[in-house]
């Protein structure tokens, strides 16, 4: 996982240099693949995270380890949404979960947006971590993924049939056109996000083209959910669609995942919509 030093320092005030942090962490189980300079006084450290530590596939996850190593407090990213104009009143979205065994929790938030490029600081951070900036809405979802390890997805609310969300397994014979333009055949063991009529995303794997956020999008529904990692893994294998989110959705990263913090951290002024499903016992939320 590629960690930008200045981003890491949002979470831990550690005075050490990139080289010192790399040396310390490589003795604590995080081998360092490379250190690359990113501008005059910043660097990207590429940590090798072993398969048992998916919770460290994010800035926050590595920050927790760094904070422990250096004995300094961990602080959250500074984001309280202050100064952001509130979202206009609007009817909420009805979210229901049919397959609660494969999706213990699904959180949605609505935000009025004007789609355009992200601010340059966000584009720079994404690029430093090897993620191509697309639009502000998509960039926010990727930013949250990199920062907290929580995969997110953005739907265009106007393109969701019936303005509702149903988390269910695919119907026999159901198909979906995914954002990469491919028409994919779904099988009934695959978990999908559906509107009133059809599947609009393959849970944790890939979004659908029909509900994708585009330039005309005015209101977006942001998804932050917990999907069964096993199900996500099987589905993405079956579809041959190895994507970033599927490798991060693991139970032990639940500390950060689905925490109620993750949505406000997305920074635009958000209005909570329906939350369905309860966190499993033992998860800290």
């Amino acid at each position, binding site marked *: 996982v590629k960690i930008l030093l200045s981003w890491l320092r949002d979470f831990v005030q550690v005075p050490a240099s990139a080289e010192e942090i790399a*040396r310390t962490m*490589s*003795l*604590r*189980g995080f*081998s360092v693949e*490379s250190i690359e300079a990113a501008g005059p006084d910043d660097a990207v450290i590429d940590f090798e995270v*072993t*398969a*048992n*530590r*998916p919770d460290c596939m994010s800035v926050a996850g590595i920050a927790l380890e760094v904070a422990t190593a250096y004995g300094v407090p961990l602080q959250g990213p500074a984001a309280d949404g202050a100064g952001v104009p509130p979202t206009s009143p609007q009817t909420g979205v009805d979210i229901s979960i049919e397959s609660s065994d494969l999706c213990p929790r699904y959180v949605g938030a609505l935000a009025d947006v004007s789609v355009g490029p992200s601010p340059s600081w966000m584009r720079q951070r994404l690029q430093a971590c090897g993620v191509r900036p697309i639009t502000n809405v998509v960039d926010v979802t990727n930013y949250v993924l990199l920062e907290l390890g929580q995969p997110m997805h953005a739907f265009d609310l106007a393109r969701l049939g019936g303005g509702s969300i149903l988390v269910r397994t695919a119907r026999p014979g159901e198909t979906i056109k995914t954002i990469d333009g491919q028409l994919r055949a779904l099988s009934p063991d695959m978990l999908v996000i559906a509107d009133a009529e059809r599947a609009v995303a393959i849970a944790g794997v890939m979004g659908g083209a029909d509900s994708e956020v585009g330039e005309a999008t005015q209101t977006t529904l942001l998804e932050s959910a917990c999907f069964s*990692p*096993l199900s996500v*893994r*099987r589905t993405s294998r079956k579809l041959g669609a190895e994507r970033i989110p599927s*490798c991060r959705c*693991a139970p032990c990263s639940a500390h950060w995942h689905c925490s109620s913090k993750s949505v406000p951290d997305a920074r635009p002024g958000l209005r909570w919509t329906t939350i369905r499903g309860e966190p499993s016992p033992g998860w800290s939320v």
Partner: protein
Amino acid sequence: MRVRQQVEDIFAHMGYEILEGPEVEDDYHNFEALNMPADHPARDMQDTLYLGVPIMGGTWGAHCGHVPEAQVRAATLLRTHTSAMQIRYMKTFPPPVRLIVPGRVYRRDNLDLSHTPMFQQFEGLVVGRGISLADLKGTFDAMLRELFGDVRVRLRPSFFPYTEPSAEVDISCQSCGGSGCGTCKHTGWLEILGSGMVHPAVFEAVGYDPEEVTGFAFGLGMERVAMLKYGVDDIRLFYENDLRFLEQFPL
């Protein structure tokens, strides 16, 4: 081959058995019995070449440990590590165990300076009463000094599904003596092998009592050793059959 002979000699002097195993393995021995059940994320660490044909007649099951028919999966594969042989050995013989398994292993890797789809590995396994991490470290100290001369050895925490705790083993860089150079990426250390204390789930899979015995296991890439020892910077040279290269390493 020269490295293989040297390593075999070192371990033979320490009283280890040397065994080979089948290069065509089944899912049970290569993964499942090693604490990697189906869909375990750690399987992604080793990209596997699956064959899709069953092993004929269970030949190896008969020779090297009985495996219930139901456990011999149709999923056959080219072994990704010689660790599969651990399972076969422990299923056949009671502890104590002192074993190394040299042999070819296969992974779906692209050719580059440090990867080939086929390479050679040593698997090592020691099991008995009271075997500890200290035995592991002492063994590596002895072996690596024998192989590389006067080097320092250090352990770094890591993860393998079949060992707990797990450690990567580094030796001090010989090119720079530990001060940092291009060979060791300026860290002063070179990663040489992966190891750890055998996971209790592995003992349970083979019918050993994890309350009675403990053990350590390790895997060592032969090409990696040869590259470090002889200053070869491209693993592909070993498989290009250029006599000018190969003749530099007579047995």
